[in-house]
């Protein structure tokens, strides 16, 4: 029984991280109609920045509780990277065919993957001090890290905040208006360029947050971005590209299948995930909640 609870918590942990990545990917696609292949790398950058900052902070003797503040700082840093990337690399491509947009983000992926290697080297970067700082809890006879619960909490909080921003604020109205009809929004006097930067930055922030909260429990390693991207793809394909609800449901489905897969059918766990994505695409090309 306690095994079941631990596995349930594990899948919720995965779901939180996956939701953060996939929701950013989906938001960017929803507003800008760009499938950002470099999104996983932005997630990895968040992880690296967080791990690096934690290492620095420990060197300076910063009290452990304050280390938690590094998580939002790392996410903001990634958002800043996004603010630089959007006008520089993506803006010239909005009028071009989709193929070029995909290719330019693929180029960006190659660049970012190597930049990470250049800056932080090939060795994994860890930040487990943060994880150890939070006491473990007991579930039945099993010990479970309290940090994972915190991550689930952050995931839930991020989902709620994102919902409120998109559906309850004026900025959310602007976002949705641009996503529905870019030209009409521009004709009504909306600064579409600014909305695009904001949407891309928010997407990057969420990816960075995902990376920053995952790094205390997993180390930051090369290639984690590419792996995360493909999983996030599965999530948005299942849930529907451009839909926040879809990202949430997709993240839950993918993490439950993954956890069950690791437990019961480890050999075909990944294959099953991709097959689910393929089946959803065949049956409902726009995903469970997609409209576009």
């Amino acid at each position, binding site marked *: 029984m306690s095994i079941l609870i631990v596995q349930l918590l594990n899948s919720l942990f995965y779901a939180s991280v996956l939701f953060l990545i996939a929701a950013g990917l989906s938001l960017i696609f929803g507003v800008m109609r760009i499938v950002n292949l470099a999104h996983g790398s932005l997630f990895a950058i968040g992880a690296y920045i967080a791990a690096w900052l934690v290492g620095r902070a420990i060197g300076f003797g910063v009290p452990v509780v304050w280390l938690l503040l590094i998580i939002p700082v790392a996410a903001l840093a990634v958002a800043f990277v996004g603010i630089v990337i959007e006008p520089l690399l993506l803006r010239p*491509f909005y009028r071009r065919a989709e*193929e070029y947009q995909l290719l330019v983000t693929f*180029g960006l992926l190659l660049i970012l993957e190597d930049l990470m290697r250049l800056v932080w080297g090939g060795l994994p970067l860890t930040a487990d001090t943060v994880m150890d700082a939070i006491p473990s809890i007991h579930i039945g006879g099993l010990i479970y890290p309290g940090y994972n619960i915190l991550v689930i909490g952050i995931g839930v909080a991020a989902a709620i905040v994102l919902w409120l921003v998109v559906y309850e604020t004026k900025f959310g109205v602007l976002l949705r208006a641009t996503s529905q009809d870019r030209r009409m929004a521009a004709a009504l006097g909306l600064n579409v360029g600014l909305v695009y930067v904001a949407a891309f930055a928010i997407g990057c922030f969420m990816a960075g947050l995902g990376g920053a909260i995952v790094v205390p429990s997993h180390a930051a390693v090369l290639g984690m971005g590419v792996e995360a991207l493909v999983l996030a793809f599965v999530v948005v394909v299942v849930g529907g590209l451009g839909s926040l609800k879809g990202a949430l449901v997709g993240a839950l489905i993918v993490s439950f299948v993954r956890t069950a897969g690791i437990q019961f059918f480890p050999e075909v766990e990944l294959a099953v995930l*991709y097959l689910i994505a393929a089946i959803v695409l065949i049956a409902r090309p726009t995903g469970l909640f997609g409209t576009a």
Partner: protein
Amino acid sequence: MEAAIARPRLHARLWPYAGAALALLALIFVPGFVGLYQTQLLTYGLIMAIAALGFNLLLGYTGLLSFGHSAYFGLGAYTVAFLLQWLGIRSMELYMLLGLPVVAIVSAAFGYVCVRHTRIFFGILTLALSQVLWSLALKFFWVTGGTDGLRVPRPTLLAGMIDFAGSGGYPRFILTYYYYVLGVFALAAAIMWVIVHSPFGKALQAIRDNEIRARFLGMRVRRFRWAAFLLSGTFTGLAGILWVPLNGLTTPDVLYWPFSGEIVFLTLLGGFRNFSGPIVGGIAFTYIKSYAVASTEYWQLLLGTVLVVLVLLLPTGIVGALSKIAKRLSAIGETVR
């Protein structure tokens, strides 16, 4: 391309054949002037050119961007490895004879599913299906060797007449295999040329340019796309079959999606609106990549930058840019005359 309205004069129609003959002649004599390493590199380039020719039937002529062509390349490579491992086959011809149907069947199955969609959904679907194969190759390590991959030693050529066993086999293999691949490449390119200039190829281009009109003309659009997908996958699979004996090893990397990205990259590098673009791209990419890998640890950074700059400044690729320059030069010539 726009010359199709008025039938071009005879000498204009002969140009491509003359160019192809010259290029082939040059390729035949190249190994006499360069070293073994260059010859090997050029062989890799020709193989990637075959893969790109197949890929471009979908992207350039049918207007479908596949992000999962690693699946067919890798499938070809793994089929060869399995034929060797399970049946002890060592003949290159048998590899092709038995491998191509396997690739064709899988392409047909994957294609049947994928052509129900277009645009970005087509791309994601091809990616997802290719990743099914990748994860199977990775996880069923007792069959596929996992990340270690499977070794494929030098095969025999021309029904066992040419063998590379014994000492001195390696340089002999590189040189002979170059001509072997060149022969297969010339045949494949000729077949592809016939395909894209046949009524079938014209129908694909019509669908690419305006799907709704093509449908009004009574074309069964999905069936045409399916056929294009099957041919495309099979060509790329042929490249995988030819690649594995040269590489000596097949790993899940050739099934992983960044490899699909490389195929897209090299096609774009050459230019996907021309027939010869993918060929130039395949060879040029092989050289750029090998020099990037040799000169810096951060070759991905270099390649990524090249790709971004290319997409920004040279959207029609090398061949597109060259033909534009040639057109401008000939226009200047006309006015001078």
